[in-house]
């Protein structure tokens, strides 16, 4: 799938070789495997956190191991409702192995996964990324590829029914609060040598403050925007553009990729890479999780790419409401 160019950087091969696998689950849980060797899930109070697990249990599926990433920032909320929602996975009576971790330190958590290699090696392996932060699942997938040598993983994701906008105004969305610092995604520092220019690819999200900060910090020579379109809901394509107005003024290109399709994002990133050879490509996956998944897949394939991400002081407790569609993707890790 990859080849070394004469400059020694990896470039992703462009010939289509595989049909991607993306399925809208709806009521088709019975069509999916009935038994899972290892299922990775993030603790969260969002209703989507355990939606897939719930549905599988309703259909009688069996999980040999559930690795539950127990985030200290989330599990000690004083709000009773949130606390109960966070621990609602217990009602599913699964064999759960809790992995204590912190949202701010994905690296330490991943390094501790060595202790659970027996569980992780139990196939088939699946992960529900609905409530993982992006730095976390990026590093998990990289770990599964490089340390566990997994070739393929099943990824689940559940869309929210709606995002929360205070006062209903489309420009009022905030996914986080407090101070922001922009970091390299652990494990994805990229390779900037032999590059004369720096480009930044922003996968647009609703929170315009994030993209402003990142653009200022990274200070790219060119910025390319990728808007999630079609989105989960028709209006979402506008909301991300409206909230990133200042970024639009400084970008050189506006591209699109389906918000629910990581493979399309992967392809778009590959196309950008081919158009901007010999540049140091930075990706800021601020958009949907499936788009971020596509970015992760791409960055794993092409280590010359750096992934940058804003880490806030605190995440908003609730940014979405209810569940909508659930998707399953077969993600190759080669």
């Amino acid at each position, binding site marked *: 799938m990859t080849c070394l160019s004469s400059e020694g950087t990896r470039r992703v091969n462009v010939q289509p070789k595989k049909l991607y696998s993306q399925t809208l689950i709806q009521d088709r849980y019975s069509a999916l495997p009935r038994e899972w060797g290892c299922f990775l899930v993030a603790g969260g109070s969002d209703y989507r956190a355990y939606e897939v697990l719930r549905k599988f249990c309703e259909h009688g599926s069996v999980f040999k191991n559930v690795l539950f990433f127990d985030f200290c920032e989330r599990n000690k909320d004083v709000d009773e409702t949130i606390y109960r929602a966070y621990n609602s996975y217990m009602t599913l009576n699964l064999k759960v192995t809790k992995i204590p971790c912190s949202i701010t330190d994905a690296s330490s958590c991943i390094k501790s996964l060595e202790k659970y290699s027996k569980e992780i090696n139990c196939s088939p392996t699946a992960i529900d990324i609905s409530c993982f932060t992006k730095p976390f699942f990026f590093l998990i997938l990289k770990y599964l590829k490089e340390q566990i040598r997994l070739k393929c993983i099943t990824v689940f994701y559940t869309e929210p029914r709606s995002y929360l906008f205070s006062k209903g105004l489309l420009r009022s969305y905030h996914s986080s609060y407090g*101070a922001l610092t*922009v970091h390299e995604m652990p494990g994805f*520092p990229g390779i900037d040598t032999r590059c004369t220019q720096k480009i930044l690819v922003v996968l647009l999200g609703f929170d315009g403050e994030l993209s402003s900060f990142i653009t200022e910090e990274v200070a790219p020579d060119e910025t390319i925007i990728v808007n999630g379109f079609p989105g989960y809901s028709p209006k979402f394509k506008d909301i991300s553009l409206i909230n990133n107005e200042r970024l639009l003024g400084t970008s050189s290109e506006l591209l699109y990729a389906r918000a629910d399709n990581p493979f399309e994002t992967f392809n778009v990133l590959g196309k950008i890479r081919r158009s901007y050879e010999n540049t140091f490509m930075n990706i800021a996956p601020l958009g949907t999780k499936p788009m971020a998944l596509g970015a992760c897949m791409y960055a794993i394939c092409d280590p010359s790419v750096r992934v940058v991400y804003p880490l806030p002081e605190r995440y908003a407790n609730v940014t979405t409401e209810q569940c909508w569609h659930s998707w399953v993707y077969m993600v190759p890790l080669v």
Partner: protein
Amino acid sequence: MISDDFYKNPFSEYNANVMDSGKILTYWCSPFTQIPYAAFSEDDVYRDPMPIIFMGGRGTGKTMFLKYCSYAVQREKAFREEKTLCTGNLLLSYLQKRGGICFYIRIDGPALRSFTGHGVPQEKWDAIFTHFFELQIAKCYMDVIRDLVQNGAIQDESGKNDFLREAATLLGRAAATPDINAIGEIIEGNLEEVTAFRSKITLMDASFEPVKVFPSQYLSFGLVDIARRTIKEVSANMNIIFMIDEYENFSESQQRIVNSCLKFVKPGITFRLGMRLEGFHTFDTISDNEFIKEGRDYRRIVFEDILIKDNDYEQFLIDVARKRLESVEMFRNKGISDISIILGKKADIEKEAIELMANRTDREKHFDLLKYGAAVSSIEEIKDKIRWPQQPLLEMLNILWVIRGIEPERVGESMKEYLEGEKSEDAKKYRMDYVDKYKLSLMFLLASAHRMNKKYYSFPVFSFLSSGIVGNFIELCRRAFQYAFFENRENLLEQGIIEPELQNKAAVDLANTELQMIPRIPKYGDYLYHFANNLGNIFREYHRDVFIRYPETNQFSIDIASVSDEKLQKAFNAAIEWSIIQKKATAQQSTPGSPRKAIYTLNRIFSPAYQITYRTRGGYSEEFSASDLSELMTRDVGKPKKDLGKRMKIEDKDQRDLPFK
């Protein structure tokens, strides 16, 4: 339909970081040539052997300035200035005339922040960072040398080969016949080792063991020494200047490493740093007892100090705007290129007051303020004597005089004399109060009395609001043009005018956007938001004082050295770094007769959000103590220090307090 090719918002793209060399040259306006007696000139960048630190808030133009001085842009400039093809010799002589070559280096925040954590001791990271920093400088240097060779500026073949051989040895790779690309490859390879380690350490324990470790100054000074010795074109009288941008992103330990380079510069090699105000996290160096000191080890140039000089700054903004307007065909064809005309050369406050009153149902609501200085029963009678509907601001001054204790008849007379141009003492005082002292304050009060907002518009007001930060001015203009195109494009495109109402919307919008961004500032966001909000509210109270005891108060003083809480001190410095507040260049008296102290203002970009003045009058400044600062940064406590109490309504004239001032 108006296509993108025809109309474009001239201010839609302003960040120097996304401008290539060509655009930087196109949009370049020197901030220094506007000021006749500036303490600094462009030549100093190339010739001054002492390290120089350029400080300024966001959007003041530091990066644009550094990039302008860099080799890439100067080379482009040389090519443009030469009418014929610029040969290598011409390029070299151009650079020699300038006095030096500037190497622009920027290591972004995310990369800098990666040199920490993951179970590696900080000392080890510092050593890795030093190694990395040396390689970055070496890379930058070699890129320029390669370019000079390719352009024919370096023709001394044997000198070049000697240089390459020695450079290879310095890099730990002896080579028989090295070429310049091979040297570049060695440096790149070393950098990739660092990157590979940074990647690996996040997943597993790893060790960093390069073939050769480069300590501080080893490559940065070493390569320059070799070049000077071997390549005759790299003459000793041409300075090598390393320009490091956004220095505030370097951590404390990283700054110590670079501070050492500043401290121990060699002849012919020097540094220029670009950073935000208060961007220094330390003045220490890697040697325990050595530190850098302004004046001795470096010069400091603050952009706002140079730029905020009344007409000079305004002229600078006009020039900046002209270039942008002329770059849009539609405006260029119509000759619409003077932003001071588009926005208006002056805010007509009197007209604004008349317009504010035009649609009011209760036209005389502001006369209610008389209750603070007169018996209620006499208010109607007083109104008759001081009413002047042709100019509400005169009515406001009349009200002010009355509640301050001047007889209404006398007030009415003074106004008449003033209007008739008489030279009596009362008329002179009236004129002084109206024209020189209180007009703007009266406008704020009038608006407040009618529960309306004062508008922010006109070129001078926009330039005040921008607070010396060019980026703010450009963003104000961008929004104003956006509103104008949407709401009244005929006026914009045909007359070349944007109405005050639309300019005001832009100003209010930007004020609120900037306020909302404050909580996102790294580390101290919440502190700074409370601080800005409290200051804004305090100053607003002064502006709403019916007696205008402290007109247009928008500054404060504090002895920051007396604040023992380190976090608060750092938060205060962050407020300066991020231009939430701005320090006045020279110490001033916070009140007449008091000792001189450092005076700060709230960035005027926030003025529309709090309905406070956009200019600096001097006069009274709030004085804050250490405990005040703690309150201001942690709670919502916006209360002025001065008692702005309104006097009770009373019937008995004898019991009235006489107003002071």
